[in-house]
């Protein structure tokens, strides 16, 4: 919609932006939310998945989500990564969207996505969602901006202790790449012109399993209200390792540390999961409209973990 912007000129100076698959970029570009220099990297980047002798994988940043979703070896070694890739966006978008682009994508906040509304991410001074309509906002209120981070793959990579290499830095954790949620002007910590090159996954542990699910209103093709990628190692009937990485609830993907601790060493059954699920929301600070996300987070934790029981 073409509107007359009667507010001040946009305060943020457009920075050059890389375009990989373009599935996020093109929409922002068409709507006018994103302007400035465009650098297309689709033809030049790394699209390969390589494997170390110890079973660790490196995924080139331009590997498509569809490739990750359907690669048999990824599914065997990192089932949580594969399931997350299968669950996001639509089949057509997954064919084109890349892993690097998924990590570097911009917020889905509906205020951010309107070219005629100013917000913190566009260099403004306030968050209009915080005082306005934040139905899909965060339930862990960690910073001035109340939009959850949109990257499903980031939560999955967080569960797997993945590290990221850029053209300037290496060994970046997901927290290192995306920050702690307190910074509101960007969706990641990449400097202007810094490009994600590849993602490294540690070799899988003996006997580990994983699952992923998102809570949405329809059956498919919806941004998650809450999503959860989990890895466990169960031995002697007990949880020896539990990783819970949640998306949709905070400005960055979150490890549910208290719930992980609550399950560690516990008998792997539905009762201990239900008990520990109460800790999933430890530290949460919901907004007036987002309390429901805490119920969904607890329900999701029970769902994804119960599916990993024998």
């Amino acid at each position: 919609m073409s509107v007359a912007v009667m507010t001040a000129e946009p305060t943020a100076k457009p920075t050059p932006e890389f375009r990989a698959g373009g599935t996020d970029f093109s929409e922002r570009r068409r709507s006018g939310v994103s302007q400035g220099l465009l650098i297309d990297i689709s033809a030049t980047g790394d699209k390969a998945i390589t494997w170390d002798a110890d079973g660790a994988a490196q995924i080139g940043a331009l590997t498509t989500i569809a490739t990750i979703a359907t690669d048999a070896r990824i599914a065997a070694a990192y089932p949580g990564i594969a399931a997350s890739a299968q669950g996001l966006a639509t089949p057509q978008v997954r064919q084109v969207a890349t892993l690097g682009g998924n990590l570097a994508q911009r917020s889905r906040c509906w205020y951010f996505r309107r070219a005629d509304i100013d917000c913190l991410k566009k260099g403004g001074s306030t968050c209009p969602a915080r005082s306005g309509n934040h139905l899909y906002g965060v339930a862990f209120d960690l910073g001035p901006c109340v939009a959850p981070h949109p990257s499903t793959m980031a939560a999955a990579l967080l569960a797997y202790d993945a590290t990221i290499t850029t053209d300037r830095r290496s060994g970046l954790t997901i927290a290192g790449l995306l920050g702690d949620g307190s910074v509101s002007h960007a969706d990641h910590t990449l400097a202007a012109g810094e490009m994600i090159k590849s993602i490294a996954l540690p070799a899988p542990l003996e006997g580990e399993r994983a699952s992923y699910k998102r809570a949405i209103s329809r059956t498919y093709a919806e941004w998650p209200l809450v999503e959860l990628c989990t890895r466990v190692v169960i031995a002697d009937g007990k949880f020896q390792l539990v990783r819970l990485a949640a998306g949709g609830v905070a400005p960055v993907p979150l490890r549910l540390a208290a719930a992980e601790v609550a399950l560690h060493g516990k008998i792997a059954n539905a009762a201990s999961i239900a008990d520990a699920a109460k800790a999933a929301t430890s530290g949460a600070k919901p907004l007036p409209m987002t309390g429901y996300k805490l119920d969904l987070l607890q329900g999701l934790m029970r769902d994804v973990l119960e599916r990993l029981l024998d």
Partner: protein
Amino acid sequence: MTTTTINGRPLALPDDPDALLVDVIRDGGLTGTKLVCGSGVCGACTVLLDGTPVVSCLLPAQAAADKSLTTIEGIGSTGLHPVQKAFMAHDALQCGFCTPGFVVEATAFHDSWRATRGTATPSREEIAAALSGHLCRCGAYEGIYRAVAEACSGRFDGNDPIAPRLEARDKVTGLARYTVDIHHDGQLEGVILRAHVAHARITRLDLAPARAIAGVAAVVPLLDDDNMIRFVGAPIAAVAAKDRRTALKAIAAITFRPEPFPAVIGLDAARRDDAPVVFEKKDRKRAGNVSEGAGGAPVSWKGNVRGPSAPFSQKAKQAKSWLDEARAQRNPLLVEETFRVSTQQHASLEPHAAVARFDGDQLTVHISTQAIHESMEKIAKRYGLPHDRVRVIADHVGGGFGSKGSVGLETIAAIELARAAKAPVRVAFDREEELSVAGYRPAAELKLSLLPSTEGRLKALSLTAHADTGAAVNSLIAGLARLIYPAEAKELVDFDVLSNLPPGAPFRGPGGPPMSFALEQAIDEAALRMKVDPIQLRKLWDPDPNRQRLYDWAAGLDVWKSRKPAASQSGRYRRGVGVATGYWLYLWQTGSSVELAVKGGRLVASCAVQDIGTGTRSVIANTVAKAFDLEPQDVEVRIGRSNLPPGPGSGGSRVTASVVPPTLLAIDKLKAEIKRTASRTPAPGSNAPWREMIAASPDIAVSAKRQEDGKPPPGVRPALHEAGLMGRVFGWVLRLMNHMVVGAGVPSSVQVMEVEVDTWLGHVRVLNAYTGLAIGKLAAPTLARSQAAGAVIQGIGYALYETRETDPSSGHILSGSMEDYRIPGIADMPKLDVHFDEAGFEHVPGGSVGIGEVATVPTSPAIANAIRDAIGVRLTEIPFRPDRLVAALKGRDAA
């Protein structure tokens, strides 16, 4: 310069890195690929890139360099693909606008399935996952499931099928041209400048800077003469330029001063005593209209609240006093509840669009419209032109659902720009305009009290509706509760609550679904308290003969008979079954005319009516073919042109009942004429006498106008007669002002829904839907089934997913994309059982009445009642999103 190969031919790609593939494809004349959401969620623009389905609305054109593209036009170019044949045979389409995208995706799925799985049949789940990147607003999913499954199983490897929908081949091959696809030589693109604030007066509007930009051909103001802005997105001016980019640049150059006024947003804020007033007394006539018919009697107006409007009340004081008494006595049978329904956007996949051109003083306008004939009359009146100087064309319309019933801003802007620019101009709304300023079914708050008598009859009903109409008036919700479930007394009061939001518009059975949402839940609640079967209670309280038969059908369903009470369920997943009833008026349009001719040995039927996906062509073709013992494909149907004999608008479910009767009259006349002019009679014993006589006939033409109905049997009367004298007055006004007649007999539906509630994730899934419909004889049975299925899935959207989101202080519509305005996808379509009861309309020539609206009325309350049955908690506000479900399960208020 880089090139791509498209359908086997080379195509140069623009160097512009921002150019998107969809625009390059469409600008190259391949308009089967549709631009709808622009955000990769609806799939209408899907093409194959080296054989892989991708969305061309997000793909940079340069990404296709040195690759091979296949569009819908390249599929089946040497003979229909099995998927195309299956879509035609199973009527897996309605308006057809999403169809090319679905077909492209489904062919890729089919080809890869066949390569690996042979002729095994894919499951519903496999098909749903493969097509999860596509959306269909008409709701053709049921046919799509069947079509894809059977194409994969090899059933359509052979000959081309006969399609029940006359224009199906054009729609599955991408050849069907919609208004947005029209391209004249020298055509300009028009864009509308819209307001960024909700309430302001515009001063010092300066269009000169826009006119000064190279490539701009015309700039016209669109402000009303009071220069007021009353909602974000209100039009200010429009520009026509050589392309969209130039037009947008010109729009940005226009300057003006907005003098801000305090704004008020939404139902609750606008009702406060200190709320800023949207329409001062002198400006009230500027408000829009959310109803299909004319307004009734004058209504009082205080601040932003227009009402009470209560013409259909019956002994209102008595109702009030009985209800007060029951309240004081704490009568356990008194059902009292406040319900809320949400704003529903039409979300037609083809946006509002018009292409206008002047050839001398002849104006031709292609419009994506539900009313070509009426549009022609209104345009002629507005611009002082004789009727024969205005031609309105709509060959195919990509959905309407009520939002395209009158001459809209897109048409006015296109005409005025074309006149100023002296060149053809296209104006097509973008998705954000479509999902914010193009109309909607208003949200409403419904306060209801229902009191059964000690004898178990319905004694008193009170329903007060406050509708969130934005900058519009004329909501009728509560009043509709008069026409069903007779009671001793009813107090039915409607209010419009105006605020600085875009105006609402008619939407498929306008106030019907909101009224039904409240009333049908109250009936259900009464049955629970009275400890009687909800279907049997309806049978007792609702004497309508059509619905009596439908209640018997519903009561006999296994799913109904084997219901389990909520109390017996305690696990994560709980199932429930609910029932609800709906009705709509049987309407037909006076003066509807059909010409029937023999031309060159072929039958040709003509009428200035349009097909918005409802199947009008097929209804006419079937009627004619049956009478002459021919196949529908043997009949040429000419519609979509305003210079044909006047036809009805596609609103009020009136088309079938308006065009079938005059078609039957014309058939009789033509038969007589063919016989009279025949030089010889068919050979004795011929098994196709009419075919032979038509082939031998000289060119002749007859026409007929919609006749009055026959005398209905005793007890069958127009729905409005339930409302006594006021109902009759309403009927007269409708006939005089809107040329619509409310006929005898009430189109009815009873639906039974089975749901599963995931109590952990707040997710509701409709597993099975049973819809019983009494709409007379089916003029086009397969298409009627498609309408029934589409109505159910649209009702599911209303109940579970759809809501417009606004910013409470600025009035911006936040759900302006298809990501955020959530219509159902194929996986959300339940298994469906459709039951047609074809009796009840024998007094209508042909025996057929409309289906479009009645079929969607009871879906949301049937789902609500099913959820109540599953979890023991009644949810009173739609959509039933996960946040509301988890809140209800915890007994807490949702956001």
